[in-house]
């Protein structure tokens, strides 16, 4: 069964199990991408997630287009559409390649040295050109049609990587009964065993042994097996982030399936079996298509049966590439030469290669390559220990497999804050002392040789299970045949002077760039990285960091560890934004809080606004009314008759206990001891810094019980502060705090006819002015529903706030609404509420005050209990600046034109136009059009404001200044006649 796919508009056939890279290679396509800077033609360097070159975009249609995917990881499916990137007009002919000719000018860090004149030219002229040239693929342009999932998991042992070490660890750990999660970034478990032709484990072929182990694991109920799942990051206390790819490999996925899933795994123990990555060799022309890692070539030939070339040269500094040569030869690739840079190659693998008739030359290196869009010739030569070239030979080839040894994958170990140690004999960093509950196994800690790796994995699995609290039997040693040991040896250093020898392939960093950086004084590897950009490409330096480090260390004449290794940062491979955001979108991005009346309000055409997480009805337009019309009507109706307002979002806290009054005394500026049960007080709370924190009416229901209200946004903050003081400063007080915000709906009835609305509805008690004066509270019922009735006003009118249990709120609301309508009233929203309270000069915390305002500034000192020795924030009131002259104080502003509405936020000055350097005198905090007073009004915070009453000042507006008169902030009924009606 073959699979049809397209690349750059041409259709090809592939096989099930192929990656895009293997399928293209099988079709003879080597050119898959262009490099970042020089736009050099590139083919795949690797066969896995470390690939720097072969980056493509995959377009599933409908906006599901993904840039910068590694062709080596894109699984083939029928109908796959892939395109190359970073080229114009085509991959074969890319005009950007002129950069390559200009390479001597575009040396490391060139952009720091030019484009400086004239001033401003960088941003206008040069930067747009550079930006257009930079970047790889194209960002998606429309909203992603896919969705993503997320889950948390706990396990005893998380095993990362399913090569021989990881499989053995998972089997070993899970046989103890431990909960095990095994994950691997590949579509299949087995890692390097999948491309092992020769080894037999316990008498089975490697692939069969893998299948048997996976079968064993799958049968264990406490084992979770995750393929296509990358462990990308290590977070505090053994929280590991996994990204699981669920649908990108399917031709036609069920739309109900998430595309990817984020796992956040809290693991008691972790076994890292992340393997090792082969190191490229650094020689001139080592980036031509057809030059690839030797083991990648072997993987393509063995695993995918996609011969990456017909005639191969292998260049190596280690034994492992001999196995690649042998496997390539067995896959019908002619191996023309193994050029081993070492002076001696005498292990079993070199012997086997020689026995197989392959020409092996020691002391030989690749000097350069030739070929326009892919390698055609390798120029090799014998190089002596001093780096002198003793011979030169042209070898025709279409594949150059290179191996500079192996780099253990330390990313997760390093992220777990483990200490690295340097092994000079193999020139590798290895895991040293652990900092977290983890252990490494296999090649990622420098263990090699299949038998040793299997044992190492089994031991790690057992030990991890043991440390997680399980009885673990000793590890089983597997019987291995046919795997020839390949010793790891120190790579032979690359020659110093080379023309175009690439270290970071994607970012086009050459060995010369690194030498230039050291020449220019960049001696820390972090500086070299940032100056040259080596290791900063999308492969994060997986194939380049060690080469860069050894080149810099050699140039500086310092040991490698002294130059340092750049930090391993998450993620191991790039992780989709959508996966990390997962479910958090739309209404799940932030919870929406609604009141019990919300549905009714929505059905009655309310326009809502966001206040914190709450949705509040802002106004209730009728017919063709806009906001201004609706608000003006709502205001007039409240002043003339009555209005009904949903105030349920107010924070509510019940303060209960024998010491409740004392607690209130300490938390609020007001005195509470003498407040009689049945009475209310407008409470003001300061932060310990002396600035106003919150306000709200508190009613004393009983000697030991207060019903405290807070601002809508301030409730959690106020309760947390109360709890803090109660638990940690005054644990001796017998007080209990309960948030009752959600329990009580608050239905405000405000206006001259408010009492008429309520009288027939409340169950048998007197709400007359005598029985229930302003600022009183009573407990009773309304229509059989339990009620706490507050006589309070935030409008300046006769007003009540009906508190009823939230579950009964709609019934009461509808009853109230019917009465309100009958009496010529209406519902009103937050905007009308704002206007009505402003006319009365009432502040809104967060609008008039802003966290820098004192009670004095707001004209609220009267609330302070003068006899109180202390309360939260009192000491700060005496700090020098809190009492200094010139503080901004609350005032009212009137414009000459009664119809003109000032802009909120506009600044006040003494002169118009203000001379340059004029300091602001203050700003407009609230401003509303004519609603009930016949003119617009505004509130402002003004320096020395109270002393300026009567003055004319100026307020900014678009394109000019407006004169205003400073007045008292109370515009309506300063005597409180309406309020006390």
């Amino acid at each position: 069964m073959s699979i049809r796919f397209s690349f750059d508009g041409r259709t090809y056939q592939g096989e099930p199990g192929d990656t895009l890279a293997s399928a293209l290679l099988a079709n003879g396509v080597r050119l898959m991408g262009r490099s970042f800077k020089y736009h050099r033609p590139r083919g795949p360097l690797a066969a896995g997630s470390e690939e720097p070159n072969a980056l493509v975009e995959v377009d599933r249609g409908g906006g599901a287009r993904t840039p910068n995917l590694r062709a080596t990881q894109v699984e083939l499916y029928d109908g796959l559409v892939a395109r190359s990137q970073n080229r114009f007009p085509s991959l074969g002919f890319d005009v950007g390649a002129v950069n390559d000719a200009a390479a001597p000018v575009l040396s490391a860090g060139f952009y720091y040295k030019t484009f400086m004149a004239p001033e401003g030219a960088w941003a206008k002229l040069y930067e747009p050109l550079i930006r257009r040239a930079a970047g790889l693929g194209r960002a998606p342009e429309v909203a992603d049609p896919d969705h993503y999932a997320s889950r948390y998991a706990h396990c005893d042992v998380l095993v990362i990587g399913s090569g021989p070490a990881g499989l053995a660890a998972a089997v070993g750990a899970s046989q103890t009964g431990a909960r095990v999660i095994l994950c691997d970034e590949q579509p299949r478990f087995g890692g390097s065993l999948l491309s092992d032709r020769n080894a037999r484990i316990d008498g089975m072929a490697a692939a069969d042994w893998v299948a048997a182990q996976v079968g064993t694991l799958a049968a264990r109920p406490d084992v979770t097996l995750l393929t296509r799942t990358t462990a990308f990051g290590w977070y505090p206390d053994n929280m590991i982030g996994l990204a699981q790819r669920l649908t990108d490999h399917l031709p036609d996925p069920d739309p109900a399936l998430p595309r990817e899933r984020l796992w956040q795994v809290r693991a008691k123990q972790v076994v890292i079996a992340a393997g090792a990555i082969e190191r490229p060799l650094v020689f001139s022309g080592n980036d031509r298509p057809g030059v690839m890692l030797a083991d990648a070539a072997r993987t393509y030939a063995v695993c995918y049966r996609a011969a990456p070339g017909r005639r191969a040269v292998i260049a190596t500094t280690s034994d492992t590439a001999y196995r690649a040569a042998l496997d390539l030869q067995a896959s019908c690739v002619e191996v023309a030469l193994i050029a081993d840079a070492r002076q001696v190659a005498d292990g079993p693998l070199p012997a086997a290669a020689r026995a197989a008739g392959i020409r092996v030359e020691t002391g030989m290196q690749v000097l350069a390559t030739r070929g326009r869009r892919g390698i055609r010739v390798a120029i090799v030569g014998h190089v002596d220990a001093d780096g002198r070239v003793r011979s030169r030979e042209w070898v025709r080839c279409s594949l150059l497999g290179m191996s500079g040894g192996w780099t253990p994958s330390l990313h997760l170990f390093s992220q777990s804050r483990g200490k690295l140690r340097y092994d000079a004999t193999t020139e590798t960093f290895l895991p040293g002392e652990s900092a977290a509950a983890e252990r490494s196994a296999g090649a990622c800690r420098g263990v090699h040789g299949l038998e040793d790796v299997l044992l190492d994995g089994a031991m790690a699995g057992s030990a991890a299970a043991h440390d997680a609290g399980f009885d673990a039997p000793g590890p089983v040693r597997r019987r291995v045949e046919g795997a020839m040991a390949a010793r790891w040896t120190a790579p032979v250093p690359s020659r110093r002077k080379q023309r175009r020898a690439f270290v970071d392939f994607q970012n086009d960093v050459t060995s010369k760039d690194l030498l230039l950086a050291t020449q220019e004084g960049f001696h820390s590897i972090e500086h070299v990285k940032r100056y040259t950009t080596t290791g900063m490409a999308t492969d994060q330096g997986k194939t380049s960091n060690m080469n860069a480090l050894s080149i810099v260390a050699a140039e500086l004449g310092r040991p490698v560890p002294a130059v340092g290794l750049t930090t391993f940062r998450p993620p191991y491979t790039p992780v989709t934004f959508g996966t990390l955001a997962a479910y958090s979108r739309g209404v799940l991005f932030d919870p929406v809080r609604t009141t019990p009346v919300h549905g009714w309000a929505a059905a009655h055409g309310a326009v809502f606004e966001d206040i914190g997480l709450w949705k509040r009805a802002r106004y209730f337009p009728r017919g063709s009314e806009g906001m201004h019309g609706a608000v003006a009507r709502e205001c007039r109706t409240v002043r003339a008759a009555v209005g009904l307002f949903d105030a349920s979002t107010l924070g509510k806290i019940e303060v209960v206990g024998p010491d409740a009054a004392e607690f209130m005394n300490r938390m609020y500026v007001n005195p509470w001891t003498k407040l009689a049960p049945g009475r209310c007080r407008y409470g003001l709370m300061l932060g310990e810094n002396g600035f106003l924190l919150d306000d709200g009416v508190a009613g004393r229901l009983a000697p030991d019980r207060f019903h405290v209200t807070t601002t809508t946004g301030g409730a959690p903050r106020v309760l947390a502060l109360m709890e803090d003081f109660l638990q940690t400063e005054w644990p001796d007080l017998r007080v209990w705090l309960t948030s009752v915000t959600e329990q009580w709906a608050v239905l405000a009835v405000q206006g001259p006819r408010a009492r008429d609305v309520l009288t027939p509805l409340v169950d048998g008690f007197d709400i007359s002015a005598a029985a229930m004066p302003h600022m009183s509270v009573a407990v009773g019922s309304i229509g059989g529903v339990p009620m706490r009735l507050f006589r309070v006003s935030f409008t300046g009118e006769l007003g009540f706030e009906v508190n009823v249990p939230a579950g009964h709120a709609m019934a009461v609301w509808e009853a109230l609404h019917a009465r309100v309508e009958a009496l010529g009233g209406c519902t009103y929203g937050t905007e009308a509420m704002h206007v009505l309270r402003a006319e009365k000069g009432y502040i809104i915390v967060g609008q008039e005050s802003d966290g820098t305002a004192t009670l004095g500034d707001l004209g609220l000192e009267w609330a302070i209990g003068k006899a109180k020795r202390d309360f939260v924030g009192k000491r700060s009131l005496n700090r020098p600046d809190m009492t200094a002259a010139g503080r901004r104080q609350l005032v009212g502003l009137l414009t000459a034109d009664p119809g003109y509405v000032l802009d909120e936020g506009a600044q006040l000055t003494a002169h118009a136009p203000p001379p340059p350097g004029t300091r602001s005198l203050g700003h407009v905090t609230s401003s509303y059009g004519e609603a009930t007073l016949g003119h617009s009004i505004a509130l402002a915070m003004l320096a020395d404001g109270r002393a300026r009453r009567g003055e004319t000042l100026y307020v900014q507006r678009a394109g000019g200044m407006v004169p205003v008169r400073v007045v008292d902030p109370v515009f309506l009924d300063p005597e409180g006649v309406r309020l006390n009606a």
Partner: protein
Amino acid sequence: MKHFSAARLAREALRGQSGWTEHWRSPDRPAHAYDAVIVGGGGHGLATAYYLAKQHGIRRVAVLEKGWLGGGNTGRNTTIIRSNYLMEESAALYNHAVKLWEGLSRELNYNVMFSPRGVMMLAHTVHDVQVGKRHVYANQLAGVDNDWLSPDQAQEYCPPLSLDAGMRYPVLGAALQRRGGTARHDAVAWGYARAASALGVDIVQNCEVTGIRRDAGGAVCGVDTTRGAVATRRVGVVAAGHTSVVMAQAGVRMPLESYPLQALVSEPVKPCFPCVVMSNTIHAYISQSDKGELVIGAGTDAYTSYSQQGGLHIATHTLDAICELFPQFRRMRMLRNWGGIVDVTPDRSPIIGKTPVPGLYVNCGWGTGGFKATPGSGHVFAHTMAHDAPHPINAPFALDRFRTGQLIDEAAAAAVAH
């Protein structure tokens, strides 16, 4: 210091780059005595040293850096530059910096890639609109450019912005500072280092200050370092997240807490995002680097820490917000995620000035936004160290304000309302 120019690049291209020399001198250890010692080789510290030498003639200066130069927050931030602060004191300080940014590449002969592409701050609620307009008006009066945009105007300036009214937090407007933008962070450190070094400043890396010496009268008389003792009468501490630790060596307890601040970048893509967009309400900060990476600022972790390693939930929460604002970026991929340590003051404004210890000066508390101030901060701090008195611009940012209560509280000014 050899001059950098296009002509020089061409000449060096022809002769195999052999003429380039080190950007700054790197002595292995400090000299025995200096007129001033700067503790901390980040952008602010290097800028301070440069202006001390350039403008105040104090050239016997050492910058002592415990790690590698520019390796702290200078190299870890999201490079946003703006000055549209509400308080006049803040606006003056940051605007001083923006003016210096505008000529900095030529001043230093080092391309710091200042890119005034515009910084747009989104409003999502009625309260946001009020706060945003208050900023715009205050800035206009203070001579700082900042304009209020309708949602349509905002989208015109930043086409990727979605105006979908069905969003959880729709865009109701935006404040735009056109002169704001970004710069290349590493180049700022390197450019100041090179220019300071050319004026005689010694920059010593891998040199940790382990003690601050005081004479019998209590005044500063030197510092101990891992590379020997240094005599000096003036020490400027510019150690960002580690300020409390350094100041403790002089017995000074600071009003600071250090938090891990995270940032992340995507894989590079072709230009798709023209400006800087910030949303304080949903905590999203995004721009695109010249290399093509989307650069995204995340929040701080909830707890004080020096670990430079925060939780995954900080990054995911940030990407929640980015994907909510820009649903087309959901398929983009996070390439790198890292943390820095920021020192935060109680009023979220920096401290630049004298300390109770004679001869000891401190420049700290920049919280999450210090990069933008780098040139201005170094400039006024150098003035303060040279004259033993603050420049008028940094006078309000004295340590003493935490005694008097004269706070410069930008965060409180944008407090959540109602």
